[in-house]
C-alpha cells in the first residue's frame, strides 16, 4: 500500500480567514463538521470537487490548501541529465 499522503493548511487558513470555525467551513462547502475534522487531521482525502470547494471558500488556489506528499519523490529534471 502506498504511503503517499495529502497534507493541508485548512487549520491555518481558517484562522487567517477571521477565525472561521469548522462548522462555518462545513456549512460553506456542504459537508458535516466531522468531515472537516477528518480532512484537517489527514484521515480523509476529499474528492477533487470538495477540495476545489474548500479552496474556493478560502479564496485561494487548490495548491495553497492541499499538498501531495509522494512516497518516492520524482527525480528533478537536472538529476536525469
Amino acid at each position: 500500500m502506498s504511503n503517499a499522503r495529502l497534507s493541508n493548511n485548512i487549520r491555518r487558513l481558517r484562522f487567517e480567514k477571521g477565525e472561521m470555525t469548522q462548522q462555518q467551513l462545513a456549512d460553506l462547502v456542504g459537508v458535516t463538521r466531522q468531515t472537516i475534522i477528518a480532512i484537517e487531521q489527514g484521515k480523509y482525502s476529499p474528492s477533487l470537487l470538495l477540495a476545489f470547494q474548500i479552496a474556493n471558500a478560502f479564496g485561494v488556489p487548490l495548491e495553497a490548501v492541499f499538498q501531495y506528499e509522494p512516497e518516492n519523490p520524482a527525480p528533478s529534471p537536472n538529476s536525469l541529465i
Partner: protein
Amino acid sequence: MTRLEKKAWGNLGGMLICVIIAGPGLAIMVHLNTTGTVGLASFLISGLIVGLISYRRNIKSWAKFDEREQKIAARANALSSCVFILFLYCASFVVFFVVGAKNPVPAYFLPAMFVSGLFLMIFVQSAVILIQFAQERHDE
C-alpha cells in the same frame, strides 16, 4: 450525531420493533400450519409496502449524506452483504449436513432463514457504521 449515525440507530430500533411484532406473528402462523393464497397475498403485500417505504427512505436520505458518510455507508453495505451471503451459505449447508441429504426440512425454515439473514445484514450494517464513527471520535 450525524444523520448517518441517527439512521443506523433508527435501523437498530426498527429492527427490534419488527422482531417484537413479527416474531409472535410468525410463531402463530407456524402453530396454525398456515396454507393458502390469502395468507401468501397478505404476506407479499405487507412485504412490498415495507420494502417500498424503506427504499424511498434510503434514496431520500442518501442524497443528504456528504461524501465521507457515503463512503462509510458503502463500506458497511459491502461488509453486510458479504455477511448475508455467508449466513445463507452456512445456513443451507449446515441443514444439509445436520438433517441429512435426503430428509425433508419444515417449510417455515426457508423464510425464517431468509428473514434472519436480512436482520443480521441490517444489524451488521448499522453496527459497522456506528463502530466507524466511534473509532473516529476516539481518534479526535
